[in-house]
């Protein structure tokens, strides 16, 4: 017990000796915070939260055209000027190729899923057979959305799915600046 006590005392004395005691040092301390941007665009249904997974359109065409509505949302915190959507289609049932799908942007407005109308200007962005849809010359601010409609070509019964993967590269946001 006595040995433990002596050891503790010696330790306490040694630990109280600060390096500053070795000589005069003036010190000044300052703190700063830094946060980086995040560039991200996701495909999601209206009012749907971000899942960070591919967006899937499921088609059960029974004749004529079928429609799906979704948004491409800037889920980051910096303006995005371009991005691409990689399309891949998978037949669920039957045989033959999946139907071509048109992707239409309602520029300057939104699609009304009930009336199937666009309050802006309809712009055909691409077809599923294009594989990649490229969006460019945008100024998509954080939380802003592009209203999209996917429309199958007229066909008979056809069951398939369309997967959308949205890619945003570093070059899609502003260049580095000195400030």
């Amino acid at each position, binding site marked *: 017990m006595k040995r433990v006590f002596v050891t503790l005392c010696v330790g306490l004395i040694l630990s109280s000796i600060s390096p500053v005691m070795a*000589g*005069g*040092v*003036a*010190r*000044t*301390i*300052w*703190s*700063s*915070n*830094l*946060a*980086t*941007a*995040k*560039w*991200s*665009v*996701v*495909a999601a249904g209206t009012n749907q939260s*971000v*899942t*960070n*997974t*591919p*967006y899937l359109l499921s088609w059960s065409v029974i004749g004529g055209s079928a429609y799906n509505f979704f948004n491409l949302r800037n*889920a*980051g*915190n*910096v303006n995005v000027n371009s991005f691409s959507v990689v399309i891949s289609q998978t037949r669920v049932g039957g045989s033959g190729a999946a139907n071509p799908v048109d992707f239409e942007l309602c520029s300057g407005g939104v699609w009304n899923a009930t009336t199937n109308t666009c309050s802006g200007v309809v712009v055909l962005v691409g077809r599923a057979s294009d594989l990649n849809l490229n969006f460019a010359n945008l100024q998509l601010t954080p939380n802003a959305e592009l209203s999209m409609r996917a429309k199958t070509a007229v066909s008979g019964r056809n069951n398939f799915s369309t997967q959308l*993967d*949205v*890619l*945003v*590269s*570093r*070059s899609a*946001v*502003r*260049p*580095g*600046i*000195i*400030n």
Partner: protein
Amino acid sequence: MIETKVKKKSPWRALAGAAIVVSVATIAGQSVIASLNATAFNTVAQQISAGTMKLDLANNGNGFGQNITNVVPGDVINRYVTLTNSGSINGIGLSLKTAQTGTASLISDGTGGVTTQALRLTVKSCTVAWNTSTGACTGGTEATELAATPIGSLTSATTLTSSTMDAGDVKYLQMSINLPDQNETTVNGALPVNTVQGGSVSVTYTFDLAQRTATTVNS
């Protein structure tokens, strides 16, 4: 018949002996007090005062006081601070170290997955105050005090290039933070492994200035 006579010691004999010893010691002591002494002293007290070590840091423009947000690769953020040796002692070995907490990929370079490059700190000085609007050292001489270094490598004190600061000296510093340009692609909103995106770091900068070398003065 033989008679043995035991002679008792008188207690007075011991007492008398002790009295003699004490008397001799007292006399001997008085003889020292009686000796002659000489004393000399300075009539005006010598003044000795210790110097002071004091290092002040002040923002020049935004300085460290303003948070930096939404940084993208390639950004360079310059902040300007002024260091002053406001003590009375000349200083040597001016050094800087940082302590940081937050997103690891912004603190140290990545080695696996997406190889990322962390934030770099460069320190430059100007002999006159920096123009905080243009970043120019107009009318002065610019010098690099610390080459671009990942902030995670500055946890030990690093001596700046011009490390002496005499009493009253002022250093005008440009603290330049850079996130090196690098490519990252976000897929469906999921960030790459070890990403530099959406991160944050709190950096504490510590400047130390040591006292000049102690000297022996003869005069």
